[in-house]
């Protein structure tokens, strides 16, 4: 006890000079400048420069019409899949969100929780689950007594992307609908609008910014996803799979890889900017009203039908396929595989090693984010560099999640090998820091936003130095959010496949768990069959579950 308090005193003594130093405006400026410089030099520039460095490789590829045609159709497929799936997700997710918020029944909570499932399952595991459900004998195909209802390929990719983007839409729209002031919709109804008309002409237009950002998030996720897509793609190629294939051919085809990465980076940024700027100006067809038709669609029977349909779509395309992740794993408990797993025999040694690598990399990336991401969040929320710079920073922050992760990985890997000649593991940590940076900064910015700036001002008027205010007011008030933000970064990093694939050469000794699992799932025979694969997936799911459980508990403490 006394030991603890003396440690505390020592820390306090070390921090005192920092408190005093922080009273100096220049010291503060330097701190924020460092965070900013880190952001620009480590997060923003490398992904853009990396591919540009190797841009001379593109020339040869462009001479090869067959390769160019393949690249072209892969890129087009990526954008087509992302747009179609995101629109379908909006159409299916919006009624579900509406229904979760507006129906006042206890059992809605169950739907609410189930809707998060694809969120909490690592994407590789989700890919596996979808694969099993739709195209393997243990799934629906077995039930229908056919070999494979939907074989790996374009269709299965769409089903997968639909499932993992669905919770994004539902989550965002549930939040928005909960905080939406229903008085506008009620006002519309007192004026004679049926509930459907009021929703279409009033509520949805008011919530347009949220709809646009939900669409964008789903779009970027779909564009970026690599690991799970590789699991269900079969011979089909979209952008990320094209890059993955180029990477894994021996020797790696650098030219096509750089070409496709460059195109994906440029177009995804352009589309993101285009939709962010033009989206809010997009006009809904609000003026025209079809009173009788919409009235008929608003009656209780139609509403019930709509809700029922939304639930059926949710169950068939999202909930049930996602839950199949557990089935092959459970079988593994009955056939002795589980014993082999725990003794670390055969392939399991590599597996546990990869899981360890995953968590080491994730922890390191989380630490990096804590150090450099938090000051950046302060810069953004407290507008340390003025309103316009803040708006710009806010936009730039989203670049790492806008660019498809495998393209980002290709570029970063080229950059870090060219400039640092870093060991693979270090490159991997830097890449994971970049990939998770956006999530962390945005989560921290939201947490800091919730602490009124006045509180800090009050402390300052009472004589506290800025750094003292920071560590005695801001940190304690946001500590739970910091913690859950950190765990979110951890899970994101453990889940990452695309950029990781790009960094690790096919021959590399280092493997992360999801990268290893993609190979296992694509080639179960090499590791001893489906139940080994299923168990491997299940362990990954369980570790993620534990992390997410911790977030829940922590957030509950906060409330």
């Amino acid at each position: 006890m006394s030991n603890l308090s003396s440690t505390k005193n020592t820390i306090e003594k070390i921090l005192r000079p920092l408190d005093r130093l922080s009273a100096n405006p220049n010291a503060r400026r330097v701190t924020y400048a460092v965070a900013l410089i880190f952001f620009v030099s480590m997060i923003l520039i490398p992904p853009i420069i990396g591919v540009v460095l190797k841009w001379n490789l593109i020339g040869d590829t462009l001479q090869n019409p067959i390769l160019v045609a393949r690249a072209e159709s892969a890129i087009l497929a990526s954008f087509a899949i992302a747009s179609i799936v995101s629109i379908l997700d909006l159409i299916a997710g919006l009624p579900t969100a509406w229904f979760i918020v507006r129906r006042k029944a206890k059992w809605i909570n169950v739907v609410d929780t189930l809707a998060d499932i694809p969120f909490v399952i690592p994407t590789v595991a989700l890919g596996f689950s979808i694969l099993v459900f739709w195209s393997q004998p243990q799934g629906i195909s077995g039930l229908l007594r056919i070999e494979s209802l939907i074989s790996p390929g374009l269709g299965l990719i769409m089903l997968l992307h639909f499932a993992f983007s669905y919770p994004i839409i539902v989550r965002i729209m549930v939040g928005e609908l909960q905080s939406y002031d229903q008085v506008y919709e009620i006002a519309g109804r007192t004026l004679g609008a049926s509930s459907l008309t009021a929703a279409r002409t009033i509520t949805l237009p008011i919530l347009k910014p949220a709809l646009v950002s939900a669409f964008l998030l789903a779009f970027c996720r779909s564009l970026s996803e690599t690991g799970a897509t590789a699991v269900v793609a079969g011979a089909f190629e979209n952008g990320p799979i094209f890059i993955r294939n180029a990477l894994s051919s021996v020797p790696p085809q650098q030219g096509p890889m750089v070409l496709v990465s460059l195109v994906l980076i440029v177009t995804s940024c352009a589309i993101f900017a285009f939709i962010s700027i033009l989206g809010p100006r997009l006009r809904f067809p609000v003026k025209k009203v079809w009173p009788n038709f919409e009235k008929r669609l608003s009656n209780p029977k139609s509403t019930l039908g709509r809700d029922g349909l939304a639930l059926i779509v949710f169950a068939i395309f999202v909930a049930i396929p996602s839950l199949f992740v557990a089935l092959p794993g459970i079988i593994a408990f009955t056939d002795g595989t589980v014993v082999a797993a725990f003794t670390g025999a055969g392939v399991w040694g590599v597996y546990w090693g990869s899981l360890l690598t995953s968590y080491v990399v994730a922890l390191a990336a989380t630490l990096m984010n804590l150090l450099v991401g938090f000051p950046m969040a302060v810069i953004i929320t407290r507008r340390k560099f003025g309103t316009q710079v803040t708006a710009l920073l806010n936009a730039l922050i989203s670049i790492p999640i806008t660019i498809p992760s495998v393209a980002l990985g290709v570029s970063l890997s080229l950059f870090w090998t060219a400039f640092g000649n870093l060991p693979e593991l270090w490159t991997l940590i830097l890449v994971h820091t970049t990939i998770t940076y956006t999530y962390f900064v945005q989560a921290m910015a939201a947490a800091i936003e919730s602490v009124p700036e006045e509180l800090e001002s009050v402390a300052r008027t009472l004589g506290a130095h800025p750094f003292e205010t920071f560590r005695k007011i801001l940190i304690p008030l946001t500590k739970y959010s910091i913690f859950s933000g950190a765990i979110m970064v951890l899970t994101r990093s453990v889940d990452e496949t695309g950029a990781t694939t790009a960094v690790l050469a096919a021959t590399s000794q280092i493997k992360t768990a999801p990268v290893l699992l993609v190979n296992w799932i694509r080639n179960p025979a090499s590791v001893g069959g489906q139940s080994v694969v299923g168990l491997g997936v299940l362990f990954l799911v369980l570790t993620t579950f534990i992390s997410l459980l911790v977030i829940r508990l922590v957030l509950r403490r906060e409330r």
Partner: protein
Amino acid sequence: MTTVKVENLTKKYGEIVALDKVSFEIKDKEYLAIIGPSGCGKTTLIKCMSGIQSPTGGDIYFDGKPVKDLPLEERGIGYVFQEIALFPHMNVWDNVTYGPRVKGWPGDRAAKVARELFELIRLSVREREYPSSLSGGARQKIGIARALASGSDLLFLDEPLGSLDAKVRTELRYEIQNIIRDLGLTAVHITHDQEEAMSVADRIAVMKAGRIVEIDEPSKLYSNPETLFVSNFVGEANFLEGIVTKVTDDTCLVESQGLSLSSTEKSKREGEKIVVAIRPDFVSMEKRVNNGEGFAGYIENQDFEGSTIRYEVVLKDHRLFTIRLPQILGGLAFNIGDEVNLSVKPEHVLIYPYPEVGVQKELALA
């Protein structure tokens, strides 16, 4: 034309009884104000009438037709919100023509109605402006125009002036009254402001804890309220507990701690325990000349209120009594410390049976 009849209307939110068997009627073209303490169920009442909420029990009739099972959008009412709630993504014109549009009116008819309404509310804003660029008062005028545009002649207003500045509030109050009179609407207007209710309404309903305690014309509610609660809630009153000592044909005599007062109230029994209520502005006061028998005391405090002055007089038995005199009637002639005699006309001495729950409880707002 529109008449309204409400029968035994009840609304429960779980355990909370927000409306408790409320019954009343509104005549055609009548302007009814509803006042009552916060949380007494005013909003719930008009939300149930308009269909925004569905009541737990009871019936509602518009023009004799039951409307309880009609959905909100088919009740043909107009509703003005305290939050104003203009659609932020539509300009002024689209806001006002929203009703006609969703009812499928042809465009030229909607435009004609909107033009007329703009004239009626005498508003000089550009039709293409968005609500965010307007002042609060202008916004609420548009809110009223929007509520009227689809031709409803039953208008509900839930604290329509509640979010506006004091000055705008008084101006707009009379404009609303004029619009309602001119168009011959039946109106139900909730307000926190008694003065607002008194000045615009034909009748006022006073609510308490989910019930209507009294519903009557403003002047009657003020000068001769039927309940102790209303005598306190509407305006201000001095309360003296006492006993009826003598009943004659047209007056009765009451005594309260040695103080005798006569009242024109009837139907009281001798010996009955009662509460006397006297409004501060119905008392006259003069400097004492005699030796201070009866209704007398000294001025302990005075507050300048603008057109009136409020005095606190300590009576002989140490009870505090409030008096309000118009300045113009020589209110300034008194000073703190002056010994004074008070007098009240018998018709201003209001008498209520002593409440079973005690005076404090009866007067409490919840």
